[in-house]
């Protein structure tokens, strides 16, 4: 369920648009920020609030890569491996993380601390290689820098 405060915020956001449905991404963001992923419960809550069929919300959620369709670890690490990062050895960064966390890309550590994924271009081509953890960009990476960043995470 959305909190009363969240419901008010989402209703306020719908006023920005000709039709309330346009606030769907915002509503989903608010759900994901609270719960970490978009469950069926989340999609039903959005559907009810914006007066949309459930299948519409499901269709939107599954269209976008940033919505987590299943639970993820406390820190979601996304390593860009697209062309500009690849040319600057992003595969070494990804392999280093896989070894260090002892998981493959696409998996979550058993303690639910980390989820590791390969990402498409994140617009850091001039500061490659890079990874995104949550909202934060970490750029110009090397193995030692990755270690230092991870050791600062809870």
């Amino acid at each position, binding site marked *: 369920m959305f909190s009363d405060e969240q419901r008010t915020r989402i209703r306020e956001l719908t006023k*920005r*648009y*000709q*039709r309330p*449905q*346009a*606030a*769907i*991404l*915002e509503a*989903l*963001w608010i759900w994901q920020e609270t719960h970490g992923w978009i469950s069926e419960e989340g999609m039903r809550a959005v559907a009810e609030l*914006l007066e*949309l069929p459930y299948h*519409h919300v499901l*269709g*939107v959620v599954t*269209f*976008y*890569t*940033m*919505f987590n369709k299943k639970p993820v670890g406390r820190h979601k690490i996304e390593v860009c*491996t*697209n*062309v*500009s990062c*690849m*040319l*600057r050895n992003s595969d070494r960064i990804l392999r280093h993380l896989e070894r260090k966390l002892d998981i493959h890309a696409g998996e979550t550590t058993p303690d639910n601390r980390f989820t590791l994924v390969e990402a*498409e*271009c*994140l*617009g*850091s*081509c*001039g*500061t*490659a290689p890079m990874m*995104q953890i949550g*909202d*934060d*960009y970490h750029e110009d990476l090397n193995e030692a820098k990755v270690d230092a960043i991870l050791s600062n995470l809870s």
Partner: protein
Amino acid sequence: MEPLLLPPIKDLHRIEVYEAHGGYAMLRKALAMKPEEVTEEVQKSNLRGRGGACFPTGLKWSFMPRGTDKPKYLIVNGDESEPGTFKDRQIFEFNPHLLIEGAAIAAYAIGAETVYLYIRGEYARWIKLMQQAVDEAASRGYLGTGVIGSEATIRLYVHRGAGAYICGEESSLMNSLEGDRGYPRVKPPFPAQNGLWGCPTTINNVETIANVPLILRMGAAAYAAIGAPKHPGPILVGVSGHVNKPGVYELPTGVPLLEIIHGYAGGVPGDKRIKAVIPGGSSTMILRGEELEGVCMDADSLKAAGSAVGTAGLIVMDEDTDLIRVITRITAFYHHESCGQCTPCREGTGWMHKMLKRFEASEATEGDIDLLLDVANNIEGNTICALGDAAAWPVQSMIKRFRGEFEKRLKHGSRKPAGETAAA
């Protein structure tokens, strides 16, 4: 050229600093003009879109109907996702008020009261920065009802995407904004007739809009005199890959690629030879290193060289680069990002990716090169939006300009001796 889009002024993102350097004076100037005069000035400047297609901006604005009772919309496209492109992000971070001022002027010119600034979801940090700047601008009366004492109402909303390359395509962006899956729409009708919620809509790239205040400040003629005559103005060139100083460089259009690579971006590490460059983001056609002499960063020069300026995201590859790996990775991207509406793109991108993986593993057979090209040719031009073309061009150009790289990766013994017929 003095940087105009990203001038080296400390704290320019703060509104008081921006104002102290003449910021928002051009909005004031525009509001004292007739909207069509503003559009005319932009037309005279020859500004062309910086989002990849190079369409003349003033002409696009002129398509917006006058005398309609429907609301009109301006969408500023900040979905920057083309691999090798990282320029709009610099504007969000270092000169957000130039973007807001440009958006307000553009909205006034086309008669839109509402502006949506659509920013890719991954840019969470820059979305926050832009929202702060928008709030500041509104608090000083540059946005809202009765903008700085005029009759004009201009509201600007920052809209966060959620991770989909296709949403940078304008019709897909509109569907995404409306709260549907981000599927591209069939054109015509074009957005100026039938856009957001069926209303007249103009969609411009972030960098394009940031150029608008510059045109009013300098005058169209002076602006048009910067850089390449048919594609003038400052352009943010993002250099990535094998260069010593990757980054975004603000240059006049028309600077030779070799000067950008060796002059601005500090050359190739280890003074290695340039094997290839992708001049304008991953969808533009790859060029051979030895063909770069005289090729410049502007629409005409790159077109003549057999590529395109795209988003001016220049990707440099040195002599040791495995180009089969490069094209396989690029194709994997387009396969992942294909929205699945059109069969040639949905199936073709996956097919090309599978074939390229065979080349990567040296498992391909001789006919595979032409088959790969045939698949690419059958995607190009046969899809609703340009993603299909964007997937086909890199493959077509890689085969055309680097066929030898593919031949080297054929399965041992699969190559037929010269003169032998296919039937033999």
